[in-house]
């Protein structure tokens, strides 16, 4: 049990997006800027909204007052034999106020709802687009899990506030202010007595808000642990069962679940104190007003109507306080969400689009790649590529060979401009990659890696991803050229078969073939294959290799592979070591010599025997 309590999770660096330590309703400058920016198109609508909500609340607040008028002015004439004329007028006015309130309230809810949803839509668009603009280096640090939670749970936290909290909050605040004013207008003395508990109420609410921020944080943290452990156990159930992990898992889960229970209990205890506390203050006030009011009425200083109106208003005064506090959590999580989203929106892409894009000579890429004094480092002191000079003529197939960490993938990422070099330039047909706009560059350079991601949709959709305007025929042609046509045709619905979540219904090899077809359809001048065949079994790999000869025929290619079979179709082999090219030449020449490549090649041959 003791080991279960602390050590099993291990140590990790602090999460970057934990809730801010000091939770504050006041947002930081960047959040405020974002909020202002999002709201600015709706200035007019917001003015309208304010008018409508003020009218609505005024109408609502008028009603108890009108009841008072009815009792004080309408009843006496009737008691003394007069007609109900005054009373009828008052009732008519009440009805009018009720209808006004209903109409304006509906208008308010619709208008505010529409503004809220439009803002949400705009926020979704902005954040999504921004994530897509940010460079790969950002995504590698930030991880997909956090991208997803930004765009789902955080946006939903704001939606929640707009949906439930906002309306309640505005109404509650306006009602409280309006009521306080009215009470004082109705009768200053009684009004002051009714408002005496207000400071206590505010202090009490402030205490609650602070406590609730702490408890809320704890609840979020504990539930997150429960969820992670639960999901991992279920997705990894194969390993759990195969290694008899169940008892230990149950022990850990029970502990996490108890932690969550504890956090929930604190939250419920807090509310168990707060809600009746508000009620108590409200009831004592009502009692006090009743005694003092009756005393005043007894001395003819206030009318019975005023007393009745007071009793009605006081109910309205204390109930919103509970509401405001209940929305506090919503407000708080929306604030934290906005904070994180504004942080993301402020990230600058490391690989920015050029302001003044240059065209390629002759309008289309030919595929000549040149590295000029290229230096690249993820961390300043440890350059991956210290100083690289390399020219690859258009149409040449180059194989990159070398141990893990030699800089092969970095080289590939520089050509496809997933990163920019820290020094020197990378040129395509003599043009610096940094001055090419995205469509031009991506049309010219395509990289296929071993993570062959398939999007939900049909097989055809996934191949078409390489060129959205492609026809059915072109898609089939591409699949045939790669050698994927046979297996695709054998699928239940051929090219129209849904690939399932992330291509789950296909084997790794099949997914890879689809990814190849996609790249082939895109028809780039420069094709980069980074370990692209490693997940294929031998027959599929052989199929792809046969296809590669056709595919690579008239384009520049850069092939990274540790299975040397792929290397043999290359025109030229580069052996890399610690960021430098140590051997360079046609494969047979290098094999014939007695350098590193010859050694690697021999080792590979041995491994096949």
């Amino acid at each position: 049990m003791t080991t279960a309590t602390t050590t099993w999770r291990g140590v990790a660096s602090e999460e970057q997006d934990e809730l801010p330590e000091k939770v504050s309703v006041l947002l930081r400058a960047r959040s405020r800027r974002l909020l202002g920016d999002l709201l600015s198109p709706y200035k007019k609508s917001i003015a309208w909204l304010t008018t409508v909500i003020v009218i609505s609340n005024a109408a609502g607040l008028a009603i108890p007052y009108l009841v008072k008028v009815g009792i004080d002015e309408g009843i006496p004439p009737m008691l003394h034999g007069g007609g109900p004329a005054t009373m009828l007028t008052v009732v008519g006015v009440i009805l009018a106020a009720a209808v006004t309130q209903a109409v304006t309230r509906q208008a308010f809810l619709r208008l505010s709802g529409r503004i809220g949803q439009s803002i949400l839509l705009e926020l979704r668009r902005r954040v999504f687009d921004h994530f897509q603009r940010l460079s790969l280096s950002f995504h590698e640090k930030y991880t997909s899990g956090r991208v997803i939670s930004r765009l789902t749970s955080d946006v939903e936290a704001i939606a929640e506030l707009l949906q439930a909290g906002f309306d309640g909050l505005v109404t509650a605040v306006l009602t409280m202010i309006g009521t306080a004013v009215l009470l004082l207008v109705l009768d200053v003395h009684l009004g002051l007595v009714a408002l005496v508990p207000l400071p206590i109420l505010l202090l009490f609410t402030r205490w609650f808000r602070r406590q609730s921020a702490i408890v809320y944080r704890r609840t979020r943290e504990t539930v997150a642990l429960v969820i992670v452990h639960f999901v991992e156990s279920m997705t990894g159930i194969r390993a759990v069962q195969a290694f008899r992990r169940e008892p230990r898992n149950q022990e850990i889960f029970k502990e996490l679940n108890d932690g969550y229970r504890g956090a929930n209990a604190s939250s419920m205890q807090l509310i168990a104190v707060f809600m009746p506390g508000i009620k108590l203050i409200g009831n004592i006030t009502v009692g006090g007003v009743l005694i003092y009011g009756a005393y005043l009425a007894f001395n003819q200083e206030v009318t019975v109507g005023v007393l009745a109106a007071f009793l009605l208003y006081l109910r309205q005064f204390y109930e919103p306080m509970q509401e405001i506090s209940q929305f506090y959590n919503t407000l708080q999580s929306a604030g934290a969400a906005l904070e994180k989203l504004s942080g993301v929106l402020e990230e600058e892409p490391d690989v920015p689009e050029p302001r003044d894009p240059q065209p390629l000579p002759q309008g289309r890429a030919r595929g000549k790649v040149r590295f000029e004094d290229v230096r690249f480092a993820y961390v300043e002191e440890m350059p991956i590529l210290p100083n690289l000079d390399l020219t690859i003529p258009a149409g040449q197939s180059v194989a990159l060979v070398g141990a893990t960490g030699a800089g092969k993938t970095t080289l590939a990422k520089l050509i496809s401009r997933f990163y920019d070099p820290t020094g020197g330039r990378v040129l395509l047909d003599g043009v610096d990659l940094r001055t090419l706009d995205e469509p031009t560059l991506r049309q010219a350079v395509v990289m296929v890696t071993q993570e062959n991601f398939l999007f939900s949709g049909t097989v055809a959709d996934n191949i078409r991803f390489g060129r959205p305007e492609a026809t059915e025929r072109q898609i089939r042609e591409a699949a045939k050229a790669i050698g994927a046509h046979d297996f695709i045709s054998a699928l239940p619905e051929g090219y129209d078969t849904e690939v399932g979540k992330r291509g789950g219904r296909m084997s790794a090899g099949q997914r890879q073939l689809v990814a190849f077809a996609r790249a082939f359809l895109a028809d780039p001048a420069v094709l980069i294959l980074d370990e692209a065949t490693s997940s294929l079994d031998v027959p599929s790999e052989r199929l792809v290799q046969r296809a590669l000869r056709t595919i690579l025929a008239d384009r520049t290619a850069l092939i990274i592979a540790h299975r040397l079979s792929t290397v043999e179709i290359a025109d030229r082999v580069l052996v890399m070591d610690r960021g430098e090219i140590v051997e360079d030449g046609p494969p047979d020449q290098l094999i014939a010599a007695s350098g590193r490549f010859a050694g690697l090649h021999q080792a590979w041959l041995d491994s096949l025997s």
Partner: protein
Amino acid sequence: MKSYLRPYVLRLVLIWLAAMIGIGASITLPLISEQVIDGPVLHGDQGALLPLGLVALGVGAVEAFMIFFRRWVQIKPVLGLETAIRDDLYEHLQRLPMGFHGDWQSGQLLSRATTDLSTIRRFLGFGMLFLVMNILQLITVTVLLLNKYWPLGLLVAASAVPIVVVSLRFEKRYIRISRQVQDQQGDLATLVEESAIGIRTIKAFGRRHHVFDNYDEAALKVYGSSLDKVRLSAKFFAFLGLIPNVTLALVLLLGSLAVGSGSLTLGGLVAFTTLMLQLVWPIASLGHILAMAQEAMTSADRVMEVMDTVPAIESGDRTIDTPRGHLRFEGVGFSFPGSDEPVLHDVWLDVRPGETVAIVGATGSGKTTLTALVPRLIDPTEGRITIDGQDVRDLTLPALRSVVATAFEEPTLFSMSVRENLTLGRLDATEEELAAAIQTAQAMFVYDLPWGLDTRIGEQGLSLSGGQRQRLALARAVLSKPRILVLDDTLSALDVETEALVEEALRHVLREATGIVVAHRASTVLLADKVALLRDGTITHVGRHNELLAEVPEYRELLAQDADFDPSEGALR
């Protein structure tokens, strides 16, 4: 459900008691106001004022205290119930076999363990109580009003009818439209997920705009449905505010007439209006609470759906004291439920203690299914598998799974320390054993992690490369010191040099254990004493690597990498 509540019977009784007293108090308060107005104020009876006032204060305090008491006491049963069900659900899910987990996405299971249980909790802790309390309050107040002055009472009671009817209709439509929004948000989330995980592919092809357009279309759908939702609730809440106010106006009018004719006192009228306003909330929330009840029922059904699933793989009752590791497949066949095509059929294979067999076959020939049968992650639909002559189905699951350990091709790492991930199958492993397993799997990189073996890895920790993950999975399997070691293409993501080192070390491990090795590469096959060729779901050939290479063309097709690739490399043949 009942058994979960049994420990808390006393508390439940107390809660109900407190709720009743609370209602009583809240109804009494307006009645005291009436007494104050009709007594001291109108009749100048100042002496009665103070006692009545004090009673009002006392009743107010009692009401507040009862709310506190009720809320405080209910914490334990409500949370206890939720926590206990969640524990049991988790335990049950861990027992359910792979077949079940293959059909159910973990997200669906999660929503049962979190959202559905919270819905049930909220209904038990809040909804159920309020449902009864509201109805109770409704009846009491209406009776009180009818008693006081029946025409007005009738009017108030009648005003409840449209509210309840409209609320119920509203809730139904609201739930429907909320579900629609939820579904659409789910679609949107899928697109977000793909855009995040597939970012490299999107960037590689420069398809930012294409992906954005898809997302935008889905976001607009959410926008549209959300607006429908806004419109619906705007209408409803406006209506909800209107009815009580109209009733109030009518009560005032008719009440004043009654006061005029002397059938109602002035204080009575004031009490009437306050009591009436007390009814607004219980009536308005009735529809909401009924909808909540309905949702809680659905949630309970969803939870029970999982809880009622009987584990298809039941533990046997025998154990093997000193397993030798003699593994036999006897006419084994397997087909997925509802499928006519068997994945495996008529598989016969005998692996003697200490022997290692490589399984070679094309993609989709059933290799992974075959390996999953040994530790009973799935059960064969035909034939049987024996270990030392015992049918694996007769063994207890813990006994079986301590004899067999598997390293999977796609390794599963959990958000835990490296150590915890490695000792998954053997919590009692010593430091020396741990170090040896790490050495065997060439996973020494773990010592260079920021906190060494205590570094958190997996989804919520440090991310590792495919090769590193595979080496950890291998170390995990080796560490559990199994009699039978199953390696399901465990080395595919390693580079050539590391692979050679790992294979060298594995040779020692496999010398002592019975081994099943799924292999794609000739180098891995060489770990084995003999090779079984799996073709179209059955084993067609068993023999030594060189024999098969020479005699079986299909085998050559699968393993001889360059068989017909480059004639100049004739050395290969």
